[in-house]
């Protein structure tokens, strides 16, 4: 029962952060939300007894991918703009 509750909360977290990633206008916030979705997924893997997958998801999905997204956002910005363009 407890497991079901935790899983449900985490699943809602994944869906909410994924929707945020799609709908947020600011690209930096969107990248962070996508990383958050991965983090929730990593926790749910751990809860469902798959620590191997959880480690990969936490390190690659929420860590490295987010940073690579942030780097690419900075690279694709035109010079002179400090903030990413709003939608």
């Amino acid at each position, binding site marked *: 029962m407890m497991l079901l509750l935790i899983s449900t909360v985490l699943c809602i977290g994944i869906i909410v952060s994924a929707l945020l990633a799609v709908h947020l206008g600011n690209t930096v916030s969107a990248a962070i939300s996508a990383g958050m979705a991965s983090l929730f997924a990593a926790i749910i893997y751990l809860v469902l007894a798959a620590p*191997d997958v959880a480690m990969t998801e936490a390190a690659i999905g929420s*860590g490295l991918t987010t940073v*690579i997204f942030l780097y690419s956002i900075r690279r694709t910005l035109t010079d002179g703009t400090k903030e990413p363009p709003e939608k």
Partner: protein
Amino acid sequence: MIKRATILLTLVLLGFLFLQMVVGYVPSSTLNPISRHYVASGPDELGAANIVTAVLVTYRGLDTLGEVAVLFISAAGVGLMLRRRTGEKAEEKQRRPSSELVGTAIHFLLPLIFVLGIYIFINGHLTPGGGFQGGAVLASGIMLLLLADPDTHLNHTIVHLLESVSGFGYVVVGVLGLVFAGGFLDNRFLDLGTFGELFSAGAMPIIYVFIGLKVGTELSAVLERMKD
């Protein structure tokens, strides 16, 4: 109008498919025959306490070699697209200094992160984790280093040497298995040792050290390419 209708129809169809999956989902209570074989004879046959590693490194070792190859090709692609042409200097950008928090914490955290990464791939045959996870942890250590001091430059000679040697070593270990044991990537050409010891499970720790180093150096190289 037609476009919207098509999209709507596709969504409804997909939703219907997923609904069928959710409604008809029954958690399987028994293992299928091939999983039963892996679970039952994995520890005895290969001497690995972690069944996941036994499957990834030996039973499905060729798939793992394929994954490593895919990662290598992606890293090579990133390197090719973001290469700096000869003579082209990195533009001197006025960078904002990194936060003091990151700069101070890195002195404590970096060695710990590296030790954790190495621990994860050396103990891959005993505890959860393995080459990919350990390598990713190593790369996140490098990431922290790049965040703390954006002017850091990795020594490309060492990185490429480490990457090439570990990739080559992985294939050599596989061929050794083909020659001295049952097949390509068979770990039993070395003594299986005592079950649960660090030096056990034949060539599995060696393979995972190679994979860990390869994944770690590749991801670090990608990060460094993306940075500047």
